[in-house]
């Protein structure tokens, strides 16, 4: 029973001091052990020399910007990066910062206004590098509107609902930059309260509130040049005429800080002050920050930051020993993580997690906490029962009772369960009304938990349940169903919003009483439910309960869900549970507490005290009316504020710069050439709560198969092949990368032109075309060759056929017969010519070309044969006159033969064939036409073949002319180059 051991610790000496101290501690996170942390963490830019910070801003990407004397710095939580600033402004104080229209606007003491474009590449500086060099690509540029710049200090910027920029000055009233035109609001012309503007704020309707020495002016410019000014002054209920600062709470109220009367909360719609600080001894207010409706932080001129709790209207200054306690606050600022930033007039910068506050009361070991309906804190410890009244703790009971449980009844009575000495019932003033003991019928003197409604009070004891009447405090003995709960330990009794009563038992699991019947839950999925320590109900009506060693369960719609260290809980040994007003499940452990976001399962953030562990006592968690959770621990009381506004609970990744081949590139550029392939990504995880514990997980989609986890905000990729990539980076504070924010940057590396699809396609097409052309040409040549060969063969065959034409032989023999007797000598000559003719024919037919001379001889032999036959009917006039050249064999002979074949030959009508050369190097064969009446059967093969063969050899074409008188054929003569 480890729990009981803790409960029976000896009481220590009780000391009640007159003052209440509130310490702020910096939220320490899982795996980070931080000893001796100051309450406010100081952010020092000492590396940059003397830096006097004057103002602070968080931009929409999450970066903190600090204005300083002659400087502008960007801060990532670890390092301040200076922005290059023009020489003329290097000794001028930055007095206002704002973000608008993609620029960081910087107002100076001398009226100058400058800006930094936010689209620039802001490489994050790596530790160890020369970070005092101003960022190369980020330069402060002086704004130059045509109207000129104010000559008095810029005190504030604000943006209205139309996007127009409002500029407050100290001495020149208010300027508006709308539609590229500057307008001025001042006292004389526009009825502004004063020309000295201290602060500006924008309300929910987009109107601009200006804080001045003479109250507030609410200004707007509905259209170009149209001015509206509405004044609020002390006459309208403002506590003071001098308004120094303004802070809208985002919920329809404006917090107004004054010079002498503290702050007030002005309801904008109802136009009156809702609350105001009474008895304000803390001097002028300089700055305000509202956290939801519940809390306002007030920066003062002499008393540091002061917390104002709206519900109790209580003011809490820092403890005396805190170095900010009496400092002058220049500016307070709330970031998106819920951190409160403080700029002092000395130029120093601090931050603290405002959500966590620790009370260190004068008694030790807080075992039960309660905030009553009058918003007073009750605490039970081994030293007794205490109530906090006017910042002191009052001992309620006459003796140092060991109080372990507390409950406030609907009648305003406090029921305090003790360890071993029954239950005390005291009224709201602390007067004892009843002390119920075992002898009165209490099941056991140790009351671990008290809960109930207007009728019944359930007392969970080490000996089972006892039920009392809420009003009369009398024992109710007629409830038989509770007997099933037995007489063993009951750790927790809890009445839910539906009127059901839940019991956390020791060994018997979870029991629930509904409509007079007990329902028992001893099995949740695979887990057997044994000892249940704590029970709570979340804002959706689901029941959460925790066990001694099996972790946490939720019960909704009859289904259990189990959370253990596997779901990133800090431990499975849970000492208490509570659900805060903003839905966070607060889980207490022996050494700290977790905040579990039920909408983001597997995401719990563990916190512990800066000075070591925080031992959360059994069931010492309490949720108050406002939704804040109070935790009683050995070391004191922790308050977790439920601000009713959401803050980020993860580091936010931001890709700050990309360099290609060591050159910074514009982040708007997304395509690169194939040789721009060496990428370095700079990124950051903005997490001012704990910047050094940020871990990165990144992956280059398209290249990396797996995520890489790193501590360095840098990833480099040399030699990326062409392709589409997305660089994804996630950030986490505790190394748990489930459901964490991510940012990405997509880019493409184009392949080189020779690897582009169109180029490859073109090459393929070209290769295809070449191959096709080659095949076609080759085919054509082969075809031509084959045809030539065939033509040749055919022509030879034809020639042969014609020569051994029976007519020719018959005619030749007839001629021979006629001359053989008359003139045997001639006959012999004739036969010789005939045989010559045949021999030549046989000799030449194999050759492609023969000389003109050879052809002429052939023709002459033929002529002799014909002459003998036709005598005077036939004349062959040869005028070649020894021309040289080459012709196809038998070309001229064939033409002569054709002429003889197709024409009438007689001595009365002689056929004359002329052979001569023309000027174009053609040999011309021409005969007069006297067509036979009955033409010889002809295939016209001879002439056609000749023409064809000449064409195949690529010679000039054979020309055939046929007019009525002459038939002319011109055969081209090839130059004889001596080849054979």
């Amino acid at each position: 029973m480890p729990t009981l051991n803790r409960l029976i610790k000896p009481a220590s000496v009780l000391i009640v001091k007159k003052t209440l101290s509130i310490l702020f501690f910096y939220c320490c996170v899982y795996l980070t052990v931080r000893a001796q942390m100051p309450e406010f963490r100081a952010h020092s830019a000492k590396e940059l020399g003397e830096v006097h910070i004057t103002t602070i801003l968080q931009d929409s990407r999450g970066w903190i910007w600090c204005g300083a004397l002659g400087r502008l710095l960007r801060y990532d939580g670890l390092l301040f990066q200076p922005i290059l600033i023009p020489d003329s402004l290097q000794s001028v104080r930055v007095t206002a910062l704002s973000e608008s229209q993609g620029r960081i606007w910087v107002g100076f003491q001398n009226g100058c206004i400058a800006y930094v474009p936010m689209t620039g590449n802001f490489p994050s500086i790596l530790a160890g590098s020369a970070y005092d060099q101003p960022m190369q690509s980020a330069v402060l540029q002086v704004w130059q509107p045509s109207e000129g710049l104010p000559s008095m200090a810029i005190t504030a910027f604000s943006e209205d609902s139309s996007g127009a920029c409002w500029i407050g000055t100290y001495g020149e009233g208010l300027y508006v930059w709308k539609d590229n035109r500057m307008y001025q609001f001042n006292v004389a012309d526009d009825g502004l309260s004063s020309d000295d503007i201290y602060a500006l704020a924008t309300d929910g309707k987009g109107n601009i509130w200006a804080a001045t020495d003479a109250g507030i002016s609410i200004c707007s410019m509905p259209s170009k040049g149209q001015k509206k000014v509405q004044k609020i002054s002390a006459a309208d209920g403002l506590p003071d005429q001098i308004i120094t600062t303004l802070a809208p709470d985002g919920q329809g109220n404006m917090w107004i800080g004054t010079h002498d009367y503290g702050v007030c909360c002005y309801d904008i719609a109802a136009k009156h002050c809702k609350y105001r600080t009474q008895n304000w001894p803390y001097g002028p207010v300089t700055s305000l920050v509202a956290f939801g409706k519940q809390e306002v932080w007030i920066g003062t001129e002499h008393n540091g930051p002061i917390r104002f709790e709206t519900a109790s209207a209580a003011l809490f200054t820092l403890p005396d020993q805190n170095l900010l306690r009496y400092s002058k606050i220049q500016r307070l600022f709330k970031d998106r993580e819920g951190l409160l930033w403080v700029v002092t007039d000395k130029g120093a910068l601090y931050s603290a997690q405002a959500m966590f506050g620790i009370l260190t009361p004068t008694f030790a070991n807080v075992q039960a906490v309660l905030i009553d309906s009058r918003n007073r804190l009750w605490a039970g410890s081994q030293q007794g029962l205490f109530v906090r009244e006017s910042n002191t703790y009052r001992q309620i009971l006459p003796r140092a009772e060991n109080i372990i449980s507390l409950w406030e009844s609907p009648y305003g009575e406090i029921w305090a369960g003790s360890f071993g000495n029954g239950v005390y019932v005291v009224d709201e003033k602390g007067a004892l009304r009843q002390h119920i003991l075992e002898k009165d019928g209490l099941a056991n003197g140790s009351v671990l938990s008290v809960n109930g409604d207007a009728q019944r009070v359930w007392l969970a004891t080490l000996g089972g349940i006892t039920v009392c009447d809420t009003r009369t405090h009398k024992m109710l003995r007629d409830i038989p169903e509770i007997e099933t709960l037995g007489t063993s330990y009951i750790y927790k009794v809890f009445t839910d919003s539906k009127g059901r009563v839940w019991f956390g038992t020791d060994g018997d699991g979870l029991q629930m009483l509904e409509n007079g019947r007990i329902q028992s839950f001893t099995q949740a999925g695979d887990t057997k439910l044994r000892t249940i320590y704590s029970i709570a109900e979340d804002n959706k009506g689901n029941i959460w309960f925790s066990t001694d060693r099996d972790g946490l369960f939720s019960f909704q719609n009859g289904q259990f869900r189990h959370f253990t260290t596997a779901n990133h809980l800090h431990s499975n040994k849970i000492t208490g549970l509570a659900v805060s007003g903003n839905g966070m499940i607060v889980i207490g452990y022996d050494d700290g507490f977790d905040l579990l976001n039920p909408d983001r399962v597997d995401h719990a953030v563990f916190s512990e005290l800066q000075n070591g562990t925080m031992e959360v006592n059994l069931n010492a968690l309490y949720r108050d009316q406002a939704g804040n959770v109070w935790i009683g621990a050995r070391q004191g009381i922790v308050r977790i504020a439920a601000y009713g506004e959401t803050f980020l609970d993860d580091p936010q990744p931001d890709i700050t710069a990309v360099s290609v081949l060591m050159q910074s590139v514009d982040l708007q550029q997304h395509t690169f050439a194939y040789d721009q392939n060496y990428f370095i990504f700079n990124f950051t995880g903005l997490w001012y709560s704990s910047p050094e514990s940020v871990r990165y997980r990144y992956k280059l989609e398209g290249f990396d198969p797996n995520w890489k986890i790193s501590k360095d905000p840098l990833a480099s990729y040399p030699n990326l092949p062409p392709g589409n990539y997305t660089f994804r980076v996630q950030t986490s504070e505790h190394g748990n990368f489930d459901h964490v924010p991510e940012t990405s940057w997509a880019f493409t590396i184009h392949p080189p032109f020779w690897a582009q699809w169109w180029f490859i396609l073109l090459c393929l097409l070209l290769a295809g075309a070449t191959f096709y052309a080659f095949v076609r040409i080759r085919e054509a040549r082969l075809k031509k060759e084959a045809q030539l060969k065939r033509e040749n063969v055919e022509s030879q065959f034809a020639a042969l056929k014609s020569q051994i034409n029976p007519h020719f032989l018959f005619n030749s023999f007839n001629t021979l017969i006629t001359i053989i007797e008359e003139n045997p000598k001639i006959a012999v000559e004739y036969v010789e010519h005939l045989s010559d003719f045949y021999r030549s024919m046989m000799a030449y037919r194999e050759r492609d070309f023969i000389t003109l001379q050879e052809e002429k001889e052939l023709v002459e032999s033929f002529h002799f044969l014909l002459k003998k036959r036709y005598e005077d009917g036939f004349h062959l006039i040869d005028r070649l006159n020894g021309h040289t050249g080459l012709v196809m064999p038998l070309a001229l002979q064939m033409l002569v033969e054709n002429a003889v074949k197709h024409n009438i030959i007689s001595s009365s009508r002689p056929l004359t064939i002329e052979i001569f050369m023309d000027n174009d190097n053609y040999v011309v064969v021409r005969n007069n036409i006297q067509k036979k009446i009955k033409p010889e059967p002809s295939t016209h093969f001879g002439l056609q073949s000749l023409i064809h063969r000449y064409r195949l050899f690529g010679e000039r074409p054979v020309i055939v002319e046929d007019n009525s008188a002459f038939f002319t054929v011109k055969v081209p003569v090839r130059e004889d180059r001596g080849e054979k």
Partner: protein
Amino acid sequence: MNGMPVLLFLWSFCCTSVLFSPDPIVYRCDTGKVLLKSDAALEVIEAQSNKLRGAIDLSANSFAWTVEIRSFEGFNNRLQREHFNENYMESDKFPKASFVGKIIEQIDLQTEGTYAVRAKGKITVHGIEQERIIKSQVVVKSKHIHVTSTFTVPLSDHNITIPRIVYQKIAEEITVTIDADLKSAN
């Protein structure tokens, strides 16, 4: 309507002299120069008037300027001038343009020197009044105040409508250059 700027002008003097300053120190001029320039895509038009009348009250740092529209000369041709007067400026209806207001900077113009000042006031052109802040250069030397300034007047601010087709010839914003030398009237 015609006398409005003049009345305003006089009124401002009365006010300042009667209510605020027992001893107004007024500098005046009648022959200040106003140069208009329209730099459009297709045509540059310039016109000038030497009849800018103005006054500065040094005790209140207030001023009034006025010029007759018909006094503008120049232009690229006569027709253009006619259009200017009749179609765009409607000079018969709105014969004058004026700028009346105060100097924002708290400076003493009785001390010799060169000052860059911002004049805040109401500029009236084509009968339409607009609030403007206009940056000017002021040189004070031996009882003379020399004022120079260049600013733009968008036509749309003053309901001067240009037919769609003429847009290429007339700029949407007219650049106005002022050059005036004021002398003590006391």
